[in-house]
């Protein structure tokens, strides 16, 4: 069941064009993310109870509490063009599952659960991921993320080229 939600979400997403708008009411005791968050929000603040990572505030002042601006700007831009489509409610052995897909044109930009059984395995599976094929690209960049653990590795790395270029 753990993997069933993303798989279900993706297969449901494939059917988006033929869906007819028919929102279903959430049942008590189930997670209803649409009620808790604006539907067009593409941020990933979705799951019900999650463990909280420890904050590393310590004695040094926290650098910034603000969310990254990039994400906020993208969200605002996307809100103008996005439309959300709720999928059909599907009965599974764990309970009823219903997902909502956010589209930008014909591109899926977000999938979230409208309804999911409030049992452990499915609750944990809710942060939905997009899946795609790995592509290679070269582009103008300011820095590279990716381990250059050894000095030899660094010498040959893109980051060394960037450091040396300036």
């Amino acid at each position: 069941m753990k993997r069933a939600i993303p798989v279900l979400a993706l297969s449901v997403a494939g059917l988006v064009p033929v869906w007819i708008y028919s929102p279903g009411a959430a049942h008590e005791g189930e997670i209803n993310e649409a009620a808790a968050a604006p539907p067009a929000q593409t941020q990933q603040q979705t799951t019900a109870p999650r463990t909280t990572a420890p904050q590393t505030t310590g004695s040094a002042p926290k650098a910034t509490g603000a969310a990254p601006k990039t994400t906020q700007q993208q969200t605002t831009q996307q809100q103008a063009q996005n439309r959300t489509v709720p999928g059909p409610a599907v009965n599974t052995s764990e309970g009823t599952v219903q997902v909502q897909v956010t589209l930008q044109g014909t591109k899926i930009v977000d999938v979230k659960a409208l309804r999911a059984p409030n049992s452990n395995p499915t609750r944990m599976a809710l942060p939905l991921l997009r899946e795609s094929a790995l592509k290679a690209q070269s582009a103008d960049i300011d820095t590279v993320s990716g381990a250059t653990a050894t000095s030899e590795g660094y010498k040959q790395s893109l980051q060394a080229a960037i450091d040396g270029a300036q």
Partner: protein
Amino acid sequence: MRRVEHIMGLPISVDLRDGDAALAERAFDWLREADARFSPFKPDSEVSRLDRGELTRDELTPDLVEVLSLCDWYEQSTGGAFTARVPGRGLDPCAVVKGWAVQRAADVLREGGATSFCVNAGGDVVTAGEPEPGKPWRVGVRHPDLADQLSVVLGVRDGAVATSALYERGQHILDGRTGQPVTGILSVTVFSDDLAIADTTATAAFALGRDGIEWAAEQEDCEIFIVDEDRRVYSSPGLPVHIC
């Protein structure tokens, strides 16, 4: 100004757009101090002294308590796949110390008045502000197979990006639960507000192997980009992908 120093066994680049060399030097000084205090390879470090039983938990500095509590949290969360205490070896909190110390080096720059900079420590990145007005820092994520290619570019202002991957021959990361090398994943990239969180989340997800994909996706305030052995990419909807 831009400088590269090798500290903690890492090439550390500081690209400071609105500060002077003295400020960069303060950040490097802090990193050298962190290395001296928390390296398990230096016999007189606080970590080595704790490991030899010369210090009790009550005698530790608040900094080391913070590092160890992060180690403990991630060890519990991953069921022991991530661990600072590999059986048969001494205490080794390096996986947490690196991101934690580099984040604090970035804090030193901010406290010194810098508003636009990029710190890259062995491929783990903290950025602030914008390199040019209206533009984010463009952080390329290395392609797992092709050293001179990227798999994605992120646009980041105030944030942190860490990647855990095996590119170089002979490297390995052990699953703390089995002691065996991890398989299933080629590269884990995590974007977060704080490099201590981003870096440790990336390392811990990698140690979990395939299970690390879902585990990382569940982590609060983290956006992920993971490449598995089949060259499939799993990414969070909130990842700040930069369209070039």
